[in-house]
């Protein structure tokens, strides 16, 4: 039910191995719709003029980082990921944006990045990339890269909630599949990452820890509907091999997947996703 007290350093456990095999990228990116609509990369902050250097860890194909760079010409944004294909994709998308760069690097141990180089180190929707026991080390890595008084900023989401039976079923299969690597999910029915974020920052001695909660409504007719639907479709396409681990047949998973796509396009489809940003200052 709780974090094990003996965190192993580095990503070494069986859970981590399973994670590597999954090869998932970000699980759900519910913050992108709001970023697109408002241009606010740090909606929890009124004044972003003091933020100059931003690192986005495990940036994937770079949507968030590019959004930040576009909306904030005074910032220099760096995105790192260990998926070469995604980095290439990110670089292509960022053509013409001069204040951003993407690099191939181990996002969980970027040795060639200098200490204390960033005002904000940002990490979002990593629950499918990082097993529970690897988080404390990861937060330490983020802190190493943050300047004194700078910010480590974590954003994670809950499983979305909807009135689509097939989407709910896919969500259930996914949380059950992630369960071995997140053994604290008490029932395997929900992701339990957002309640842990504050403690992770506190245990790393971050100061002045704060939080902000957001919701993305992706019901039919809402602005976010199409983007989130495509994100879910891609995520579940990618995760299909994972979803059968619990004993569900590939045929059933495929059938549910197709049903999910149809149900999300129905006029009466309703869905929301809550996500949480927690941030804290590096002491000093």
């Amino acid at each position, binding site marked *: 039910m*709780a974090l094990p007290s003996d965190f192993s350093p580095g990503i070494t456990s069986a859970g981590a191995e399973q994670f590597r095999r999954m090869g998932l990228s970000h699980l759900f990116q519910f913050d992108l719709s709001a970023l697109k609509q408002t241009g606010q990369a740090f909606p929890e902050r009124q004044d972003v003029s003091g933020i100059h250097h931003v690192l986005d860890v495990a940036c994937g194909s770079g949507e968030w980082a590019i959004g930040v760079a576009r909306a904030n010409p005074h910032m220099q944004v760096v995105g790192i990921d260990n998926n070469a294909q995604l980095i290439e994709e990110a670089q292509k998308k960022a053509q013409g944006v001069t204040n951003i760069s993407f690099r191939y690097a181990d996002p969980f141990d970027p040795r060639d990045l200098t200490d204390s180089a960033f005002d904000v180190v940002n990490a979002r929707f990593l629950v499918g990339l990082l097993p529970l026991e690897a988080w404390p080390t990861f937060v330490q890595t983020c802190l190493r890269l943050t300047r004194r008084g700078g910010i480590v900023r974590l954003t994670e989401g809950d499983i979305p909630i909807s*009135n689509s039976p097939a989407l*709910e079923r896919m969500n259930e299969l996914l949380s059950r599949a992630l369960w071995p690597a997140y053994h604290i999910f008490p029932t395997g029915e929900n992701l*339990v990452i957002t*309640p842990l974020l504050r*403690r992770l920052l506190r245990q790393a001695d971050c100061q002045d820890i704060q*939080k902000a*909660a957001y919701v993305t409504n992706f019901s039919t007719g809402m602005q976010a509907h199409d983007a989130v639907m495509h994100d879910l479709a891609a995520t579940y396409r990618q995760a299909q091999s994972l979803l059968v681990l619990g004993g569900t047949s590939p045929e059933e998973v495929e059938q549910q997947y197709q049903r999910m796509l149809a149900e999300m396009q129905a006029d009466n489809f309703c869905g*929301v996703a809550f996500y949480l940003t927690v941030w804290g200052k590096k002491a000093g």
Partner: protein
Amino acid sequence: MAAPQDPSSRDNTYILGHTYAEQVRLVEQDRHFTQGMGGLLPEQTGLSAIHRVLDVACGPGGWPLELAQEYPHIQVVGIDIDAGMIDYAIEQARASGLDNASFRVMNALDPLDFPDAFFDLVNARFMVGFLPTTTWPQIIQEFLRITRKGGIIRLTESEWGGTTTSASYERSLSFTIRAMQRVGQSFSPDGRHVGITPMIRRFLQDAGCLNVQEQAHALEFSAGTAAHQDIMQDLWIAQKLLQPFHMGVAGATQQDVDQIYQNIPVEMLSDEFCGILYLLTVWGERP
């Protein structure tokens, strides 16, 4: 009173029942929720144009009493099905010398005894605890009737119980959610959630409300947070009150509910305990 097993019952459908313990619990809960949400109407601007407010299913009156205290220019009315709750609220208003808060016994499922276009704002929180799924559209229509043109309907709901690292609490939640599904108070297709949060915006839109907006809040009650002890206490009392519902409707055994009741404080008082509850407020204007 135990929760009824007949979903068509027009009587008291509140799943926690109406007892003194629930009254006291709700007073505390109101305080925490208001604090966790950053105020009574944190998202509303232009409160100076709001003079008459209705709070539906107000319980012992925590929210309307605080509103009356903070905004002397607002006349607030609270209604609840339970006379004990209303007596308590009236007594509190009197003791605090609040003459701008009044309370009446009224069943929110019946036509409401107020004139058309009477209120500037109608507030209803956590109706999922007593409202059958099929009744939502009609109750919103009734709210619209008693709200003035341009006035606001404001709904706040949460997925029941939140997300925690306590296995016993999560087990209890699954009984609650299963039972709510059996009595027709769950929107979730598979009974893993209550499924109310995706629906409330749709209800306001379908009723023709304009400028529908929404805002999320997260109430943290992990070990080490300010609300930890108090919310734990609140959830623990709720467990006791939910036992008849779990046993009568969800098929839990005496042993199940005893075990849950014993283990929750142990698990929640652990230094490692983490818990969070997401709340969603949706509001829109009457056309």
